[in-house]
């Protein structure tokens, strides 16, 4: 039986009561009682109020940590004091599998200029150059990337000029910089955009070697956390789809350089990588399509969309065969587990796509997502790309460069006519489109952007969910409240969760979390309400 839930509007009001009036007004627009039947606006991608305990991180984290972190053969040098490099050292679980035992893999390493006070006073460019030389002499990498931390922008170090000079000096090493200072933008999101821009400018399109393959795709916005990318790669291989490049799970510089030779871009995490998809479409004529490999249904749907996009009978058949084969384990597991998970409640507050994607997995278990929101999403991630023309560009977003991209006179090639693309769009293919999370959520669910620690605790108090999904910072506070928290950044060091195999893993992990017996043991026998009678007598005697 499903739980009777408190009215979402009342909950919203009660949450807002605690805030100072100005804060309450702002938060009121970031909390929406969802109604998929109408267009609703949500305040997002705006500054977090100082003092609010937020989930959000910074631009550097989005750029170096998220987008560039998973590429194994670039030496990523953090230009700044030691902390930023240290904290982003191996902490995101991006798995990588070098081709051979000797192939390049710098991911287990952390490189930093470890700026000192004299670098802050007199400038850090000299030290940065020296660091790049030292890295080159030691490792002879194909690429070196420089990531600016907060003080770098403030003292005026020009990392792009340093990159240009060093690229010329070294000759056979691509050196490029990222102005991803932590104060840029309002969250990790700014860093994603900066990363997209620089990779597009300095890497994509440098190698015109065309890989064999009938159906050539790039997978965008899949970071191979917990091996998700491996599962998806395996599926593609089974279907006969050739992956030219993944941005950026298990990736290499070489694959990025050839990525413009693909015929279709598949966008997994819309928030972090839609810029790349758009720019590649404009410059090279590669159409892009939103897909989702989280959840068995969505995986099947995505594979079918790809097959139909290529309009190839053999591919369509192969995909059906693969789905039929893979779906067996999925159905068996669901059959076994669902009686134990049916009607349980989930809440998801992560990222810029996961809060949407994972709802599918929960519904396959018969669980309802009663409240969800993104940590750094924009309105289009909530309401769909149709709102992009209406989004007001504020001062914080205006500072992030928009590249002026044009058709490449030589490399642009039309893959599909506009009319054909329109036909696919009309069929609901999300061609160059994303419908967003809110239309997929039920009526009267609560959508909350950039949720705070206080709001998290209130929600738990009101809804008593069976599982709460967020990240490491939220995990133990939520669990102290007796609610299991599933980390959807690191998967609690488990996974993979993508594709059919990943779905099976997820079902099992959620079953484990919501049915583990330890939650029932939190209260000591003597703390439970119904005390043994003798103790009751004792207490009344004492009173």
């Amino acid at each position, binding site marked *: 039986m499903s739980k009777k839930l408190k009215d979402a509007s009342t909950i919203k009001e009660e949450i807002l009561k*605690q805030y100072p009036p100005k804060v309450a007004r702002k938060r009121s627009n970031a909390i929406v009682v969802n109604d998929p039947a109408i267009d609703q606006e949500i305040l997002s991608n705006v500054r977090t109020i100082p003092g609010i305990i937020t989930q959000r991180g*910074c631009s550097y984290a989005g750029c170096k940590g998220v987008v560039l972190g998973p590429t194994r053969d670039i030496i990523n040098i953090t230009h700044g004091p030691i*902390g930023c490099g240290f904290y982003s*050292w191996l902490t995101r679980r991006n798995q990588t599998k070098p081709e051979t035992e000797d192939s390049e893999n*710098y991911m287990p390493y952390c490189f*930093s200029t470890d700026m000192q006070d004299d670098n802050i006073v007199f400038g850090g460019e000299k030290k940065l150059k*020296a660091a790049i030389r030292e890295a080159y002499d030691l490792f002879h990498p194909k690429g070196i990337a420089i990531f600016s931390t907060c003080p770098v922008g403030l003292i005026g170090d020009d990392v792009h000029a340093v990159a240009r000079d060093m690229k010329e000096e070294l000759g056979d090493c691509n050196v490029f910089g990222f102005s991803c200072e932590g*104060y840029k933008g309002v969250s990790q999101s700014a860093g994603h955009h900066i990363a997209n821009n620089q990779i597009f400018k300095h890497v994509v399109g440098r190698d015109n070697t065309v890989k064999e393959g009938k159906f050539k795709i790039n997978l965008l916005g899949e970071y191979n956390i917990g091996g998700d990318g491996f599962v998806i790669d395996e599926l593609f291989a089974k279907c006969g789809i050739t992956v030219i490049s993944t941005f950026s799970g298990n990736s290499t510089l070489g694959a990025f350089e050839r990525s413009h030779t693909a015929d279709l871009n598949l966008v997994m995490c819309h928030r972090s990588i839609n810029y790349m998809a758009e720019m590649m479409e404009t410059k090279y004529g590669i159409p892009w399509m939103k897909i989702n490999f989280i959840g068995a249904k969505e995986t099947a749907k995505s594979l079918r969309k790809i097959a139909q996009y290529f309009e190839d009978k053999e591919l369509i058949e192969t995909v059906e065969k693969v789905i039929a084969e893979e779906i067996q384990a999925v159905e068996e597991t669901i059959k076994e587990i669902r009686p134990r998970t049916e009607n349980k409640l989930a809440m998801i507050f992560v990222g810029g796509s996961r809060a949407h994607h994972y709802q599918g997995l929960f519904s396959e278990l018969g669980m309802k997502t009663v409240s969800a929101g993104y940590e750094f999403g924009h309105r289009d991630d909530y309401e769909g790309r149709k709102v992009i023309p209406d989004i007001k560009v504020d001062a914080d977003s205006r500072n992030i460069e928009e590249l002026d991209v044009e058709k490449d006179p030589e490399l642009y090639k039309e893959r599909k006519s506009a009319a054909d693309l329109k036909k696919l769009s009309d069929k609901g293919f999300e061609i160059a489109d994303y419908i967003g999370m809110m239309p997929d959520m039920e009526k009267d669910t609560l959508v909350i952007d950039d949720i705070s620690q206080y709001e998290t605790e209130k929600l738990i108090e009101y809804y008593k969910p069976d599982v709460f999904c967020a990240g490491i910072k939220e995990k133990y506070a939520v669990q102290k409240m007796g609610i299991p928290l599933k980390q959807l950044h690191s998967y609690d060091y488990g996974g993979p969760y993508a594709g059919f195999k990943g779905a099976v893993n997820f079902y099992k992990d959620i079953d484990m979390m919501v049915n583990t017996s330890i939650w029932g043991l939190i209260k000591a026998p003597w703390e439970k309400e119904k005390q043994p009678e003798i103790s009751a007598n004792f207490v009344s005697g004492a009173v």
Partner: protein
Amino acid sequence: MLLRHTPKEEVKREALTINPAKTCQPIGAMYASLGIHGCLPHSHGSQGCCAYHRSTLTRHYKEPIMAATSSFTEGSSVFGGQANLLQAINTIFTVYNPDIIAVHTTCLSETIGDDVNQIAQKAYDDGKVPEGKYVIHTNTPSYIGSHVTGFSNMTASMAKQLSEHTGRDIDQLNIIPGWVEPADMVEIKRLSAEMGVKIVMFPDTSGVLDAPQTGKHEMYPDGGTTIPELKSTGDSIYTIALGKFASEQAAQAIDSKCKVKYDMLDLPIGISATDRFIEALAKRGGVYVPESITKERGQLIDIVTDMHQYLYNKRVAIFGDPDQLIALTEFLIDLNMRPVYVVSGTPGKYFESRIMEIAGNKVPEIKVKNGSCADAFLLHQWIKNEPVDLLIGNTYGKYIARDEDIPFVRMGFPIVDRIGHSYFPTVGYKGGMRILEKILGVLMDKQDKDAKEEKFELVM
């Protein structure tokens, strides 16, 4: 090989740090602040700093780490962060209601020159700090020192901004425990109680970062040094500061503000350093060492005498934080082991001189490096050139240990892949026993794993 690109040949580096053996100041300040009861640490800088510090501390403790941020934008970086901090203080007291906010800076707010002292004062003047509540602050520029410096700075700020000399002597000792684990703080309190010495210890993260599962999240758990206790440190009879890098600054601060003298000791890790701590407690507290403590010591010595053959002359590489490494070097030498490589990213000349003072004659082959480019990459190169029998350090050491097949004991910060450090101390004689158990465990596991069938031992 995970660290497949680390060459054996050591080339001098001056600009590039690879695999650091330190992190930045603010995280140390955040950790120290969590050792005040009812405190919400506040990071005055970009959101990312706060997020990274909270994440790292959470991975280490598997506990909620609550802290707020000034959420700087590009605008605040240009115009200064005063408005952000004032708004943060108001928001925090309204929404999260702590007794005290402990503000630390970041490289961002330091570079633009925000004066947090003046901003905190303004918050008081503007009535943004409710009656009976406090805002303390410290400067933690990330481009100076290390996380240990940040811990030291915040601890010193507690002393400077909260200790009071009322002229009424209180029969208690101040203990500044240094950057140790909650378990160590519990152990220091237990040892003091066992000795019959009343102490006030700060910071004290026990009860905060080892909180029980109760079904309720307490923003401010039971533990932590209370504000009245912190104030009373100015009336104590003496201070015992443990670990020069993390604690001396605070001891000096109380001395200069309230004229409470101090003993500067190494962290009480191992036999000799614990002996000195116990003696100092006895001397300054005016008590005799009870039989029970001598018995604990005897148990530790007994384990060593029993298992000496597995320890004798084993070569050990250690990396991490200076106070721990100094004490650990002495302990290893007491065990007749050979700490041959000692590396810390934290700068400071005292480190090398103290290590050499302890080890110079006994382990003449010792290599010590700290500060700039003293990192785990260098340590790995040393190991490749002349191998060791044991590696001790934080979790990042496991990459070296796996590649080189070296027994590995986790000690230091952060430990993100094992539990136990929050609950079982490494200080005191009991802590020594735990370290020994761990060292012997990994050495013997390796012997078991590598032994040929005919050489496989049942009894060891």
